[in-house]
């Protein structure tokens, strides 16, 4: 793009990325941040599996093993899966609804920096040698008695990152409600936009309980509170309720965007309209609602009594209905389609059987009496990895290959992509399928090591080999990304050739203002409608090209988050050091000053002139021919 591709030095580029409020750049930042933590969590997973490869292994100590499982779970959920999905939402969703940016670009940037600093805070615990070790669920009686600062890192790090998530969720909601292009009715929104909408609504209602729970935990551990201490009149079980009132919707927040990605991939590569669009939307919304009604199924063995267990068991099984609707709609989308088995499609095809297996074991656990047998066994580990890896991670990889050209303007190598899929998919099933039986054979989860002669040796060995295959698959993908980036072969608007939604109607990567003129949406699968009518420009504009108002970048979001990051250390050390309280106050004051600066200093933005937009268009046309 003539207007943006001015050569600039390293410092200027860095400053540009630190201050950007452009949704596409923030999407890339989320993606890179998420992938970084994905690698960290992956390394932790590999060490866990290597420790369990043989009985009585002593690769890591018992304490370190607890650190590893806690950080693996926390990192993968909060710092890898969610940010990567946010990356896709940020980069793609505004393009799909024909918007120039999200509703609040500044808050978008703030959300990212809070996630980045929260994740950093959590992982700095490794440098201090005091790592969270109470499991990713951090049940209160255990987390309150965990010595050192480990759980403090968990409570404060997640508090900061969670704030960022809440902001991102609200931002997406407002964007989808208010910024759809003319003609983009709710029932014309692509499924990925719909799932973003419902997942964001779930974030809106699910994250406040987490915030409250984490504050209670912070007060209990660092400020002499007694919310969860039963000897002081508190209640330990309350943490479990609060955590799962958040935690269950959280897993749907992860899986719904994954469903959205697959819905796009299926209809593009089966070259058919998504079967049962209306039913898909209804199922998405229904899953969103039901997700809040089932939290106690994580707590069947707590002793809530038969009434609660029965009601929550029935509610849990009800979720299988809308999910089943989705599975059948995907199958019927492929049915009779003219299928192209590209890398994203391969992931999508692999996803259906994998996720169904995870769903079926979920219904098994939903039956409260059986859950008494399965609880805290490797069966549970197998189940949630089947839904999260078989659902969310496969979707992330599918989305990465599918939208890479739109985000970066280059095409990932298809051959290497398929190699990645084969290694990862076989490795995934090898790792986790056998763990169902390990559970049946009585192996408890979260154990550091196990004794010889219990019949678990071979299964654990197979599981570890599978994990290694997954690591190989991921490594191939990283090589693929590096190779593609170095080669830098630019692609056109619609590199897959069968794009149906609006993002494929504009250049890859899009100009920073996305659309020269706001598009007019004339039906579901906007671009497909235009293609079928043989439109040359692929976009029917809803307005003439005029000047575009754009916001300036700002460093304030990063500074705001930095203040909270500093305050976190103050809170953690204020009991044993003299400087802790000062640092806490300084950090919070720093954040408030940046907030005040933002409030007082107006950003009036700037205009991209009509002449410049026309010039860009002209250059693009010349480049194409």
């Amino acid at each position, binding site marked *: 793009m003539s207007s943006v591709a001015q050569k600039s030095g390293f410092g200027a580029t860095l400053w540009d990325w630190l201050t950007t409020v452009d949704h596409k750049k923030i999407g890339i930042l989320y993606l890179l941040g998420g992938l970084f933590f994905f690698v960290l969590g992956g390394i932790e997973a590999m060490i866990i599996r290597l420790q369990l490869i043989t009985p009585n292994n002593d690769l890591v100590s018992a304490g370190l093993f607890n650190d590893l499982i806690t950080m693996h779970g926390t990192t993968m959920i909060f710092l890898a899966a969610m940010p990567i999905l946010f990356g896709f939402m940020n980069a793609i969703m505004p393009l799909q609804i024909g918007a120039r940016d999200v509703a609040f670009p500044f808050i978008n940037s703030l959300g990212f920096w809070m996630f980045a600093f929260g994740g950093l805070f959590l992982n700095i615990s490794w440098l201090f040698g005091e790592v969270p070790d109470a499991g990713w669920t951090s049940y209160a009686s255990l987390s309150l008695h965990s010595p050192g600062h480990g759980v403090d890192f968990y409570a404060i790090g997640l508090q900061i990152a969670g704030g960022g998530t809440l902001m991102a969720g609200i931002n997406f909601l407002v964007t989808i409600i208010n910024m759809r292009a003319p003609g983009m009715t709710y029932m014309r929104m692509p499924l990925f936009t719909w799932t973003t909408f419902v997942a964001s609504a779930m974030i809106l209602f699910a994250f406040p309980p987490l915030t409250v729970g984490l504050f209670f935990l912070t007060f209990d551990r660092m400020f002499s509170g007694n919310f969860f201490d039963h000897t002081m009149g508190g209640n330990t079980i309350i943490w479990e309720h609060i955590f799962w009132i958040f935690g269950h919707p959280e897993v749907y927040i992860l899986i719904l965007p994954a469903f959205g990605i697959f819905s796009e991939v299926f209809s593009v590569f089966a070259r058919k309209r998504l079967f049962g669009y209306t039913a898909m939307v209804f199922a998405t919304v229904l899953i969103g609602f039901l997700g*809040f009604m089932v939290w106690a199924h994580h707590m069947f063995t707590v002793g*809530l009594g038969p009434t609660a267990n029965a*009601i929550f068991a029935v509610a849990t099984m009800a979720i299988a209905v809308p999910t089943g609707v989705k599975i059948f709609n995907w199958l019927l989308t492929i049915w009779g389609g003219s299928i192209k088995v590209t890398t994203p499609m391969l992931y999508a095809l692999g996803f259906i059987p994998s996720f169904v297996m995870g769903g079926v074991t979920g219904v098994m656990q939903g039956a409260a009496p059986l859950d008494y047998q399965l609880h805290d066994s490797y069966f549970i580990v197998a189940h949630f990895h089947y839904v999260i890896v078989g659902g969310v991670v496969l979707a992330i990889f599918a989305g990465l290959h599918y939208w890479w050209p739109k985000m970066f303007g280059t095409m990932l190598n298809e051959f290497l992509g398929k190699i990645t899929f084969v290694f990862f998919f076989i490795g995934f099933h090898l790792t986790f399928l056998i763990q169902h039986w390990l559970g049946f054979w009585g192996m408890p989860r979260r154990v550091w090591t196990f004794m010889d002669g219990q019949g678990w040796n071979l299964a654990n060995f197979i599981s570890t080999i599978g994990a290694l295959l997954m690591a190989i698959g991921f490594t191939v993908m990283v090589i693929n990304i590096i190779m593609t980036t170095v080669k830098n072969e630019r692609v056109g608007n619609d590199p897959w050739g069968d794009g149906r939604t609006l993002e494929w109607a504009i250049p890859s990567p899009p100009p920073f203002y996305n659309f020269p003129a706001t598009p007019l949406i004339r039906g579901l699968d906007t671009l497909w409608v235009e293609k079928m009518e043989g439109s040359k420009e692929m976009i029917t504009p809803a307005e003439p090209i005029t*000047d575009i108002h754009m916001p300036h970048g700002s460093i304030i979001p990063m500074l705001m988050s930095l203040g909270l990051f500093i305050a976190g250390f103050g809170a953690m050390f204020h009991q044993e050091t003299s400087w802790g309280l000062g640092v806490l106050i300084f950090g919070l004051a720093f954040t408030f000053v940046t907030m005040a600066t933002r409030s007082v200093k107006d950003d009036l933005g700037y205009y991209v002139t009509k002449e410049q937009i026309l010039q860009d268009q002209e250059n693009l046309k010349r480049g194409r021919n």
Partner: protein
Amino acid sequence: MSEVQMIKRSPAEQSLSQRRAKESMRSQIAMFALMIFLTLVSFSMVFAHLNDVAGFSKFFVIPTLFLFAAVQVGLQLYYFMHMNEKGHGVPQMFMFTGAMLGFLIPLTFVTIVWW
């Protein structure tokens, strides 16, 4: 800078918007009066209870106060915060969803979970 467009109202539009504004003002004043009245009734009920007037027991006064409070919240939202006007469907949906969750979860606790 982009050009600023001025669109003049036609006389019919002008009179329509004036009539709308008048109606809105009338209903707001009526609702304001109603809310003052409800508040007065609430206070009188509590005074009646404190002075042991027959019939104003705790079990009558407290539920009635809650009922009045709910009505006042509704009036506040719909007439003073303009939720009765067009284009408020989405905020209403989110508020009702939030209220429903906020009501259902504690209800679950006090009926079937008992902590």
